[in-house]
């Protein structure tokens, strides 16, 4: 066989957008006239999924198919259990379902961290983390009884919704299911198109212009300078270049990821699906808590709803903590540790998680202190700017940890 498959990674180059927009035209015209062309949508999605996972990436494609079948088994197995007459809703069954749903991701993370330890049959594919977020979410809502029915077609479309498959934003099943079968009103859809176009171009500016300058143009130069000066300085190998790296990397991270997220939201809007936004001017946050309400929002809301809240209820029920302040601190610690481990099993991701946990705990203490001494503490536009400045720098420092650059500088690996 001598086929020449082209492989297109999502949003990676101009060609991708040209193909994508051409493919979208029938969907747009359909929605404009109040019709959702479901069959075409499915074919179109499958083609673009195929383009991500074909050619040299075909093993990832196989991995994806097996993964999805496995997840269907877990979700529908649990749903079946919950829908039996007078279902017991046993906690251990729920735990088992959640564990089963995250086992593939854990195996992949272990495999990535220890490449020598070949785990047979485990192969990471693009988007596995984000698919796991979706399935775990569904299992949890089935437990709560919030999801009573799961249409196989809708569920598959939700899981494999290709604009967001590679890195989110993370949508919610119930939200998605409400929209995916109907066509919006014409005037609403026109607003969607307006936003979609704006987001698309904002995304170009973010990812291909600003992200390029920070990530491709400046970052390698700064990296080199920081390595050379660091080696010359000896000791902790620190230099002002590390500070430059910190800011440059933070900007790169934001513009690259926010740009990508804008593409995903834009394409969803063209398809009449309101995928939630991922970023909302994160760098004007006045404290860490606010920062996480503005940065990678769908991820932090997911962690808030399915880890922080769950843990808080669980601990309250079991009366693990007497002091509510201690309880929320423990919940934060858990949340950010899990987030750190989710990023990968390396010291700097875990330290990044811990750093944010402590930052938010300290922030909470400060807020309580402020509340108590309201009359004595000034609050004006200068303190507001100071708060923004401090938060920004704390966040940038956390990204320096996250980048792995310190690991490269100190230990020579990343």
């Amino acid at each position, binding site marked *: 066989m001598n086929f*020449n498959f*082209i492989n297109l990674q999502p949003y990676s180059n101009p*060609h991708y957008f040209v193909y994508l927009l051409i493919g979208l035209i029938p969907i747009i015209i359909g929605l404009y006239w109040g019709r959702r062309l479901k069959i075409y949508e499915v074919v179109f999605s499958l083609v673009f999924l195929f383009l991500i996972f074909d050619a040299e990436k075909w093993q990832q494609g196989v991995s994806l198919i097996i993964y999805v079948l496995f997840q269907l088994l877990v979700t529908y197995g649990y749903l079946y259990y919950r829908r039996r007459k007078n279902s017991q809703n046993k906690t251990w069954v729920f735990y088992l379902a959640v564990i089963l749903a995250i086992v593939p991701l854990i195996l992949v993370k272990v495999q990535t961290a220890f490449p020598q330890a070949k785990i047979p049959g485990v192969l990471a594919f693009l988007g596995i983390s984000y698919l796991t977020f979706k399935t775990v979410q569904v299992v949890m809502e089935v437990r709560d009884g919030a999801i009573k029915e799961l249409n196989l077609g809708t569920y598959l479309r939700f899981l494999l919704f290709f604009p967001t498959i590679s890195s989110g934003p993370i949508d919610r099943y119930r939200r998605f299911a409400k929209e995916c079968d109907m066509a919006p009103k*014409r*005037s609403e859809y*026109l607003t969607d*198109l*307006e936003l979609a*176009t704006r987001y698309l*171009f904002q995304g170009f500016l973010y990812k291909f212009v600003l992200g390029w300058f920070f990530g491709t*143009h400046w970052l390698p130069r700064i990296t080199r300078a920081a390595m*050379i000066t660091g*080696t010359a300085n000896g000791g902790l190998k620190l230099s002002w270049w590390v500070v430059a790296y910190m800011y440059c990397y933070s900007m790169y991270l934001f513009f690259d990821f926010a740009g990508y997220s804008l593409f995903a939201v834009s394409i969803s809007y063209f398809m009449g699906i309101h995928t939630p936004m991922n970023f909302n001017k994160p760098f004007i946050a006045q404290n860490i808590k606010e920062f996480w309400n503005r940065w990678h929002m769908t991820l932090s809301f997911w962690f808030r709803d399915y880890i922080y809240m769950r843990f808080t209820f669980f601990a309250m029920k079991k009366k693990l903590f007497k002091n509510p302040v201690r309880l929320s601190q423990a919940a934060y610690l858990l949340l950010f540790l899990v987030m750190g481990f989710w990023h990968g099993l390396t010291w700097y991701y875990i330290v990044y998680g811990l750093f944010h946990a402590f930052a938010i705990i300290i922030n909470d203490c400060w807020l309580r202190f402020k509340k108590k001494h309201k009359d004595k503490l000034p609050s004006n536009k200068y303190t507001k700017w100071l708060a923004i400045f401090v938060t920004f720098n704390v966040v940038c420092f956390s990204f320096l940890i996250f980048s792995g650059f310190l690991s490269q500088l100190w230990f020579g690996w990343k």
Partner: protein
Amino acid sequence: MSNKRRLWQIFGPVLCAAVLLLVIFLLPWERTFSQGAIYQAANSQTTTIFKGSLMKQDAYKEGYVPFYGSSELSRLDPLHPSVIAQKYHRDYRPFLLGGPGSQSLAHFLEMQSTHEQLKGKKAVVIVSPQWFTKMGQNPDAFALYYSPLQACNFLLEIKKDTPTNRYAAKRFLQMPEVNSFVRQGMKRVAHGQKLTGFQRFYLENQRRILNNEDKFFSTFQLRDRIKKINDRAKLLPATYSVKALNKVASEQAAINTNSNNFGINNRFYKKRLNKRVLAKLKNSQRHFNYTKSVEYSDFELMLHQFAKQHTNVLFIIPPINEKWSNYTGLSQEMYQKAVSKIKYQLASQGFDNVTDLSKRGGEQYFMEDTIHIGWRGWVAVDQAVKPFMAQADIPRNYNIHNYFYSRKWQNKPYQISLTNENPLKSNSKESLKGK
């Protein structure tokens, strides 16, 4: 507001922008570069310049001579050809082409844009035997130097099916970066077919766009090394003499290599050869073999291109640092065999300006580091370059032979000398039949 109007307000600007962009990139723009920009470009060694067209074309019209090579060109010590040409107001200026990892195949592609400008002119090639590994051009490095523009040029300039075109297309197809329409075109050429009408149309337009891109953006991110050159030039004696240059070379080298016993530049030694690396490298190159390699045929592509352009070419074969090769166990005997094979390939086709420095790797301060020529080595290079540049430009004719594209030649252990049996006469027809 009516729906139609809203639609226009949403998509109108996008459509206008798309049309405008297409128009801008398809119009035949003119652009000239300042002398300063060209001088910077000639010494910048960036991949943008390597991949582009217009700056080189302009430069060759104004007395620049291409110096094709690889990483040794970035050893910008005071005796570097660019510094010497500047200091002594030579009537040529080197245009440095190549860098780490650029080998014959990358150079052949690069040369596609300048065949008009180099017709009957001069060129210098520093051909490193290190290129001649079994697999030839490193695919990852090729990706760095691959220019879609030059690939379009290659495909569109093809007049007829020749072994050279077929061989080149086959080699390009083995490189990862070559994709989409260019790849389809290369496939046809590799099979001896013409491009289809649509392919031609598409590639023509793509070439236009890429040419405009080159025009608009080639001065972006130029690496400015002029100050460096001027600073280095200050160290050279006011009047040219080989003896005085050698003296400066020895002085400079003595200061810059005092950290080790290999005669390796201190900075290079410190950065690239820490204890662990050094321990690993000891005797690690005993099995290196440069005598059997596809690179010989890739190199033939370059020669073919020179012959087509009737360019007068000076070839320089650099040595390897002898102290270093003793340490890594690289065989000097094997090295000499490779050199003899290269020299045979050159001489038998009429390329007679060859300066073989390959046996001088043991001379003190001849090398900048492990395998890169520097200091006194650059002085030796200048002793060849100076008289070569003094010659008048005359179109040269060469006897190109397709035998050098054959597996047989690639895998021949070595060629002793020209007086031995001549493979061109005895085997050529046979070997071509085999292709």
